[in-house]
């Protein structure tokens, strides 16, 4: 929303602070100001001028004009009367008119503040006519789209040489307001409400105009004008309709202050009726719509016209003002003439009842609609107009009649009010909220007196009654957001500035570290210190990715409004994401690396949590990637073993069969990681076909661990004990020849068993098998010592004999 600072200041007491400070205060106490567009100098050297002489140049569209600029412009040639010569191509240029002249040296206002400001000078036209500056069209002075002619100024406001900006107060600053931060404040979507807030912030007492507060009708209804209104209050809490009749007066050709206000808010001036309704919307936050009364009656097909506001029917169609035809849904609200749709409520009028130059009578609609329905309309039909932006905030029903009457008065030069119709028969009871001074100061940490609170709230037109510490607050009708004591407390804190509340630190309690986070930090330290790279990848994956690794998409939660198919499913495990990110890194020139990620996964087979939301699993995924066709299983295993050893988690590896989520491991070259009786993860080579589908070599290995289970193991682990012998240790090599199919683990445990009474260190050195042989040699390096004595030669030999006989 764009707010003119000049307009905002009108009607406020004199402001003694600078504009910058005012904008800061607005930012601190009302709404986020995204930016300030400084137009203070936008209209420099643009003057009101009178065309003193105008002659059409034959066979061209140009006229030669002499203008009176009051002698303001410099560096121009003047004739003997002191007039300046300007060529003008506009068809409406004529002698005697007042126009806006962009003098030489001025920036054309429409290009002011853009990347390419255009400075005007003197041009020679048709090879012989000097033309100084230019007489501007509405588009050139940034006051509309009209380029059919130059703008004409009313003689009552213009005089030769008067700065154009002074006529309409255009030396202005425009605040760009972030609408989101006012979602709950429909009243501030009109300049009146915005101004009221600024008054409150500045400590000024604000008073709304009487007509706005009482909404009294100042004319008698013409009994001959017929119009019934039928509403569904759930969809349309209040509907006001005024019928006006044309006085026959012609619309003026001159530009009005109102038009400049519309332009400053980013809207286009169109004609006096539309402009008046739009201006009322910008001023009071109440969107209005004008129907052609006679067309409305004709569409309804009876002479007892009736406005029926109802939900649209499925498949019902409506041609809108902009010529598009929309298919309606039951969430849309339609305005109908005897049940024939004539407007999409809150969004846009229909073509069949549009006003035009022949319109004699109009219906001026001022209503409120269900913001929930209009929100759906907005989304379904993609209509994001100024009007629907306001309607979806929930405009107060209290202002429909007063603003409609206001608009009728603004239009009285051209239309005479005939009758007013309104569905509201009684004024609803205002909202009264009780709050205590202790509540206010107790929630804010402030020190307000009852009198302070009364003044603060009354400044913005709350009615306040003090009774000791008890404060009874009556909300004005436009504060539909006020319901509970906290709403009042917010007003008091906000209007006086939350920044004026003294920050006071409460006493700290103590907190225990979150064990899962501590574990993750530990894992991160271990893996990264061993050369692995931690990554983060999206929780969302493509269905194809799951198919590639053999996971079934129907075990994954599917996003119905995903950004792209790449992000359509919530992943079932981490490893596939890592595989997906490996090839890019190989291509980037990294030929050997390990990636890991710790994050939550949500395969459907995990079921639901106690609170009926999907159960997630914190998981560690790890891959070891190289660009050579080789087994990386033992590399991955080294990382896994080391990690679990440092964490103190005892485990063993066992054969397993593929299941729904771990389908990418090659079962002959993979293992389940078992601790206690529980499988806490898997390690293995990725199936060749899977690796190939990611453009990776056969032999890529990975592991994954359930971090919840790992946490339980790591927490339950006994502290690591160290035994060092004070006696010399013996260093020996050992090679054992075993059958080709002997598992290493079996051998390992036998050796350890044989050494159980000693302090020892066992390191495998190699596993050798000759081509075609049915045995293999496994070599170890061994260091051992006795805990209590020095081993003798014979004792050492006994131990080695025992080991070699394994």
């Amino acid at each position, binding site marked *: 929303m764009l707010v003119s600072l000049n307009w905002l200041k009108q009607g406020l007491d004199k402001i003694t602070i600078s504009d910058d400070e005012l904008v800061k205060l607005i930012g601190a106490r009302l709404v986020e100001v995204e930016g300030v567009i400084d137009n203070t100098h936008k209209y420099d050297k643009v003057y009101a001028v009178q065309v003193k002489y105008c002659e059409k140049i034959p066979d061209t569209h140009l006229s030669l004009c002499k203008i009176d600029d009051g002698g303001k412009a410099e560096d121009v040639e003047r004739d003997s009367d002191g007039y300046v010569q300007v060529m003008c191509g506009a068809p409406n240029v004529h002698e005697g008119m007042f126009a806006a002249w962009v003098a030489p040296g001025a920036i054309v206002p429409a290009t002011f503040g853009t990347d390419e400001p255009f400075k005007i000078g003197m041009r020679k036209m048709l090879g012989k006519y000097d033309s100084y500056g230019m007489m501007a069209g509405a588009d050139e002075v940034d006051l509309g789209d009209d380029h059919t002619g130059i703008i004409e100024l009313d003689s009552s406001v213009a005089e030769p040489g008067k700065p154009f900006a002074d006529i309409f107060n255009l030396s202005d600053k425009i605040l760009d307001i972030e609408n989101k931060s006012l979602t709950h404040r429909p009243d501030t979507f009109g300049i009146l409400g915005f101004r009221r807030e600024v008054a409150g912030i500045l400590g000024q007492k604000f008073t709304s105009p009487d007509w706005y507060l009482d909404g009294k009708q100042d004319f008698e209804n013409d009994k001959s004008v017929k119009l019934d209104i039928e509403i569904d209050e759930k969809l349309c809490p209040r509907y006001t309709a005024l019928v006006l009749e044309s006085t026959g007066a012609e619309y003026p050709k001159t530009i009005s202050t109102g038009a400049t206000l519309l332009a400053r808010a980013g809207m286009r001036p169109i004609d006096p009726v539309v402009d008046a309704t739009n201006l009322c919307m910008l001023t009071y936050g109440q969107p209005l719509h004008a129907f052609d009364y006679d067309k409305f009656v004709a569409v309804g097909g009876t002479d007892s016209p009736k406005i029926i506001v109802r939900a649209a029917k499925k498949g019902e169609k409506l041609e809108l003002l902009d010529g598009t035809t929309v298919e309606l849904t039951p969430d849309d609200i339609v305005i109908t003439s005897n049940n024939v749709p004539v407007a999409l409520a809150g969004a846009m009028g229909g073509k069949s009842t549009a006003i035009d130059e022949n319109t004699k009578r109009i219906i001026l609609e001022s209503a409120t609609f269900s913001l929930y329905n209009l929100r759906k309309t907005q989304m379904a039909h993609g209509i994001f107009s100024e009007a629907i932006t306001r309607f979806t905030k929930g405009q107060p029903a209290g202002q429909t009649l007063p603003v409609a009457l206001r608009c009728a008065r603004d239009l009285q030069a051209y239309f005479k009010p005939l009758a007013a119709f309104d569905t509201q028969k009684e004024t609803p009871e205002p909202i009264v909220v009780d709050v205590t001074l202790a509540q206010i100061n107790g929630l804010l940490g402030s020190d307000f007196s009852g009198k302070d609170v009364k003044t603060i709230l009354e400044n913005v037109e709350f009615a306040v009654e003090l009774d000791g510490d008890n404060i009874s607050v009556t909300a004005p009708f436009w504060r539909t957001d006020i319901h509970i004591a906290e709403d009042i407390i917010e007003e008091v804190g906000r209007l006086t500035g939350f920044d004026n509340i003294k920050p*006071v630190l409460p006493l700290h309690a103590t907190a225990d570290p979150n064990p899962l*986070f501590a574990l993750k930090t530990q894992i991160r330290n271990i893996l990264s210190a061993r050369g692995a790279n931690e990554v983060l990848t999206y929780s969302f994956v493509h269905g194809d990715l799951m198919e590639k690794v053999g996971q079934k998409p129907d075990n994954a939660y599917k996003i119905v409004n995903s950004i792209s198919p790449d992000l359509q499913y919530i992943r079932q495990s981490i490893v596939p994401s890592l595989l997906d990110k490996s090839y890019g890194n190989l291509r980037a020139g990294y030929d050997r690396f390990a990636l890991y990620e710790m994050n939550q996964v949500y395969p459907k087979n995990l079921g639901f949590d106690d609170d009926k939301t999907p159960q997630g699993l914190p998981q560690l995924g790890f891959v070891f990637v190289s660009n050579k066709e080789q087994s990386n*299983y033992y590399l991955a295993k080294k990382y896994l073993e080391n990690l679990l050893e440092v964490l103190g988690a005892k485990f063993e590896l066992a054969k397993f069969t593929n299941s729904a989520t771990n389908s990418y491991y090659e079962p002959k070259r993979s293992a389940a990681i078992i601790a206690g009786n529980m499988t806490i993860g898997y390690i293995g080579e990725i199936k060749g076909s899977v690796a190939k589908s990611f453009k990776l070599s056969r032999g890529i290995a990975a592991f994954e661990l359930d971090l919840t289970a790992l946490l339980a193991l790591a927490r339950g682990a006994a502290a690591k004990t160290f035994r060092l012998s004070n006696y010399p240790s013996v260093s020996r090599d050992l090679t054992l020849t075993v059958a080709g199919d002997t598992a290493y683990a079996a051998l390992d445990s036998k050796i350890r068993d044989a050494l159980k009474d000693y302090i020892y260190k066992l390191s495998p050195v190699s596993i050798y098998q000759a081509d075609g042989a049915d045995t293999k040699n496994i070599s170890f390096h061994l260091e051992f010592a006795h805990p209590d004595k020095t081993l003798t030669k014979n004792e050492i030999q006994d131990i080695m004999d025992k080991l070699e006989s394994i």
Partner: protein
Amino acid sequence: MATLQELKNELKALGAEYAKIKDLPADQRADFGKKINERKNQLNAEIAAAEAAAEQEDVAPLDISAPCDINGQMPEFLTADQGSQHPLMTELDRVISIYQSMGFDVVESVQLDDEYHMFDSLNFAKGHPARDGYDTFRTEEGFIPPAHTSTMQNRVLKANAHKLKEGKAIAVAVPGRVYRNEDIDATHEHTFYQCEGVYVSEDCTLGNMLAILREFFEKYYGQKLNIKTQPGYFPFTEPSLEFLIEKPASLGGKGDGWLEMLGCGMIHPNVLKAAGIDPTKYQGFAWGGGIDRLIMLRYQLNDIRYLESAKLDFLKEFAC
């Protein structure tokens, strides 16, 4: 048993066979088509099984317990200088350790939640336009990858309500991954991290909230900081504020600029009520801010998309 090639040949032949359907009398066509289809499905299954078996035959088993391959080298870790930790994760650690030092328990946010936790329990009226502002993703079942860590408020309040009865305060920080349905560019990601804070006691005030937030950022940036606020709107807090800090010296601040760090406010009574906490006895405040933004600022990162890219070129800048 038929070989893989034979099976494939039969499948091909079946295609040709099916073409004969147009020569049959109409009353026999359905039956014929059905038979062909049954056989086709059967063949496809057999081909898949045969292919899987072929892959298996190709694969020699390995000794899962061994330290290395037969005749292979003993594996070695990559060199330590190759390793790196993800900047988002180390930042998250830094953030939560500060909260812990300030007496806040830490609970991780869920990554798939429901309408109740994401909106209903946070005082969003059903169908209220304020829900649109969150651009949520939805699953077929109507679950929501949460768009803010506030999705945990109800759980955290419920789980800790007993502390209030013991005369203690609830003080919890909730880091987590959140999601918004928006197109990504250099400054927007659909996946990012936030940290929520929740504090409830008998008598805590907005002044307390401002002090806690200031303390957090002073610890985080290691210097005294000026703070300021702007009014905001969140259905789950009343009053609602945006919290700003003076640009710290470590980020090149010279006491002039302001940084918008998070949204905050006094917890709406309806949110306390939804968690079974009596809002007439207890009051609290909550806040939430982005972690990605902290990193963007700290490292002067010009493109947020690096964070979830898993590109080693980027990650190795954070070698440990």
